[in-house]
């Protein structure tokens, strides 16, 4: 069974640009969670999508947004990139609100903003 996949693996952008990160959940999982792992800040919850709807977002500015497609693939967009957005962005999937408790993580997208 394929795990959670993320693309791209690495992304280099300049300040002010936009970045798009993509996540494919495990087959059968309806929930996708996004976390930011920034140096010195640990893992911070960013967004949760379930059944195509945004269910919750963490303490991040509105320039962080996303969506979930009918096939449960999710994208996060970061607009007006700032240097402090440089981080490893991890997505995870689970069986949704009525599914399993644990979240399974992908390998991450490393975003570097210069």
């Amino acid at each position, binding site marked *: 069974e394929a795990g959670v996949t993320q693309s791209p693996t690495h992304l280099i952008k300049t300040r002010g640009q936009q970045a798009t990160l993509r996540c494919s959940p495990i087959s059968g999982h309806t929930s996708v969670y996004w976390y930011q792992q920034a140096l010195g800040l*640990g*893992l911070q919850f960013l967004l*949760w999508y379930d059944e195509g709807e945004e269910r*919750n977002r963490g303490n991040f500015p509105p320039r962080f947004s996303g969506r979930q497609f009918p096939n449960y693939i999710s994208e996060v967009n970061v607009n007006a990139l700032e240097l402090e957005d440089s981080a490893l962005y991890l997505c995870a999937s689970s069986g949704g609100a009525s599914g399993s*408790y644990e979240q399974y*993580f992908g390998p*991450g997208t490393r975003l570097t903003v210069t």
Partner: protein
Amino acid sequence: AQSVAQPEDQVNVAEGNPLTVKCTYSVSGNPYLFWYVQYPNRGLQFLLKYITGDNLVKGSYGFEAEFNKSQTSFHLKKPSALVSDSALYFCAVRDGLDSSYKLIFGSGTRLLVRP
């Protein structure tokens, strides 16, 4: 507020010796507790979870963890460490009263197993 504390930045053990990585938590409702491991340049790998029931839970690669409600702890243990266990370990909690389903992570503990 929900929180997780991993008091040790690094734990050093010799191969073959038992290991313990400490975790304490604070939540409003019932805790759902998890351990993950992260190898360099990789995502997080699920090790084990406590949802309800037996306080001692067994997980992948010979790891186990003990839930202690009175001490609000969920320490990760392994009877005999391997060099290949060297990695970054994260404890995480989900508050049973939190409808966001998000995980709150500790700051991580680096485990170094020397040959």
